[in-house]
């Protein structure tokens, strides 16, 4: 099957900074790819080159079978990281204009905008001026603008940035709907939790270079955390007793419960049973692989990496509450 996007050996340099370095990427049609990495990793530059907003110094791109996104712009939806509106324009006029630029007739654009705005909880904003909307409302309107042409390829650059938890959830649902419709989705984020939830394939970029390109399911197997998360039924339960279980390497208190690190060569199923027999659990499960752990493990092994793991972790967790709480 023809790929929706093929990036081969793409490099972009600004002055002495190599923003993207020999990037190779193939996104099959219908797939959802997450482009992740800390701020400044080169995600936005890569996306701008895919959109033909910037042009690579080296390398080639194929977008929806065309040699440049310029030839397929009507079939692409794009939500840039730095997104804006014409503040004095009315919402319906703004969406109509964006739709017209993508070849959608006015009547059809109005109908689609009506449905999408309603889905996003903005049924009454069509005739309002953009400057009268809150930031969260504006971001939803901008998302409508990105998908109003029912794109075959949807590129979202930090789509959840600055959104409140409710808006994040609404947006995730709409992205999932686009996924079901058959759109290929590529989105960048530095908030790993969002990528974990939505993506089938993860592409990690660090200092302009691709450091990982794997399916999410493979990552879970490959980067098995060997950690059990336990919330005891009785908050006063003696968690120290768990140290007596053979194969328990480390126990770390975590809120009302704890995180138990297992030694290599232990059988996870047996360990779960052993833990549950000593401390009655309210919740017990294996910790899922976290992309931030994978990322840190990958870049820590890279020569010349100077960030501390903790600084990276803070960054990748979304600089606090941004988008990660939903």
């Amino acid at each position, binding site marked *: 099957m023809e790929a929706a996007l093929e990036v081969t050996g793409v490099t972009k340099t600004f002055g002495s900074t190599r923003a993207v370095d020999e990037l190779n990427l193939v996104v099959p049609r219908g797939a959802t790819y997450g482009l992740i990495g800390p701020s400044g990793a080169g995600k936005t530059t890569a996306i*701008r080159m895919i*959109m*033909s*907003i*910037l042009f690579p110094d080296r390398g080639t791109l194929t977008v929806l079978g065309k040699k440049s996104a*310029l030839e397929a*712009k009507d079939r*692409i*939806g*794009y939500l*840039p990281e*730095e*997104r*804006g*509106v*014409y*503040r004095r*324009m009315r919402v319906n006029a703004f969406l109509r*204009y*964006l739709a*017209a*630029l*993508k*070849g959608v007739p006015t009547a059809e654009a109005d109908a689609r905008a009506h449905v999408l705005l309603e889905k996003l909880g903005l049924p009454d904003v069509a005739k309002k001026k953009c400057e009268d909307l809150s930031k969260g409302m504006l971001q939803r309107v*901008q998302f409508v*603008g*990105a998908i109003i042409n029912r794109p075959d390829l949807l590129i979202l650059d930090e789509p959840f940035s600055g959104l409140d938890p409710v808006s994040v959830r609404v947006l995730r649902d709409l992205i999932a709907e686009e996924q079901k419709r058959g759109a290929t989705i590529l989105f960048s984020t530095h908030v790993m939790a969002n990528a974990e939830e939505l993506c089938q394939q993860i592409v990690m970029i660090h200092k302009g270079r691709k450091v990982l390109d794997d399916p999410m399911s493979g990552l879970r197997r490959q980067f098995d955390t060997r950690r059990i998360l336990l919330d005891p039924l009785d908050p006063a339960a003696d968690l120290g007793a768990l140290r007596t279980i053979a194969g328990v390497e480390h126990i770390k208190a975590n809120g009302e419960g704890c995180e138990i690190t297992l030694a290599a060569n232990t059988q996870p199923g047996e360990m779960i049973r052993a833990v549950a027999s000593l401390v009655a659990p309210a919740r017990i499960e294996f910790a899922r692989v976290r992309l931030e752990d994978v990322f840190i493990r990958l870049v820590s092994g890279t020569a010349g990496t100077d960030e501390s793991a903790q600084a990276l972790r803070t960054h990748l967790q979304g600089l606090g509450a941004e988008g990660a709480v939903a």
Partner: protein
Amino acid sequence: MNSRIGLVAKREFVVTVTSKGFLIGLLIMPALALLFFALVPRILGGSTPQIRGDVEVIDGTGQLIGDLRAALAPAAITARAVANARGSGAPTPPRAPPELALLERPRDVSVEQEKNWLTAGTKEQPRIALIVIHPDAVERSGGNGDFGGYDLYVANGVNDATESVIYDSVRQALVTTRLRAKGLEVPAIESAMRVPRPNAIVVSAGRQTERHGFSRALPFICGLLLFLGVITGGQTLMTSTVEEKSNRVVEVLLAAVSPLDLMWGKLLGQLGVGLVVMGVYVGLGLLGLSQFRMLSQVDPQLVVFLFAFYLVTYLMFGSLMLSVGAAVNQIADAQSLMGPIMLLLLTPYILAPIIGQAPNSTFSVVVSFIPPVNTFAMMARLASDTPPPIWQALLTIVVGLAGAAVCVWFAARIFRISLLLHGKPPNLATLIRWARMS
């Protein structure tokens, strides 16, 4: 034309021409012209204070008083004002007739004492001037070749207009008295001195045109129209680009159109705005001329060239202004980059008097082929009484289009590279470097 370019152009045009700022700006020029021609003379006339008060004269000649009294008579003052206004071409402001009382003082009176008289005036009975005529003002004393003159003392607060009336009156009285003293017939001499000045009729192959005030002003008017069209479209182009950049809406647009399409759309949209401005002003101007039966003073070919030159000039300056808008993040940052562009736009006004005096001199011809001022120079030459041959005007368009192509090329490179750049505003050298590297 690419449909996306058309859509961007349409939006740019509609948003601009329906804005309140544009409508006010468009109407303000005709409104100001109306005010100037219709209301200002009345206001000026209404606000000019009446010339009124006592004037003392010490006549050292003993011969002048009669003629001075005649020269200071209200009818004589008004007649001189009308004659002067006709000579300068300015409208005569209506004014209340002057009321000047001439008081003669003996020749042996102390001038110092009379100066005190000048300071004792009241609001109801103002004392405005003391004129001391020298004894040799009418007949030369001894072998001296020059006539004597007079001294003028005025009260504090006497305005320039009153002072001028007194100067003119004394001058007229002295000349009349001197002529009479020589036994010359004054009315005959005055009549002999009066030669009406006709409007020159310029004769060229196939037509004759009368040169008058309007035809002299026409090159300036055409240049002004060209300037207004370019500056209106260009300035809006720059501000709308800065706004799109600072609003961060530009990357949303670039998702749907290429940078080049966006640039052309904006250029063409504002080209239309400039055309509306020019169309309105030219239309109103022609309407005004038709009211005064002066429509024949304007050659229709001139109007065609005006619009053709506008297209060329706009493409040159509009694209440069667009590149400035794309390069900066806020209007304030644009000022330093706009400086050289504004200087180029104003250069024709420095050249206009030189071209106006000799429209077909070597200098005028050479300037007509040097972009970006060539269109202004050629417009001034075409509007003059001795227009150049048509091939020169067409060559100006060709050269202008070449200049426009260079400007658009430069703007396209700046536009593409700088639209998504934020931070320190670039200087001219940086812009040139960007154009070379992109």
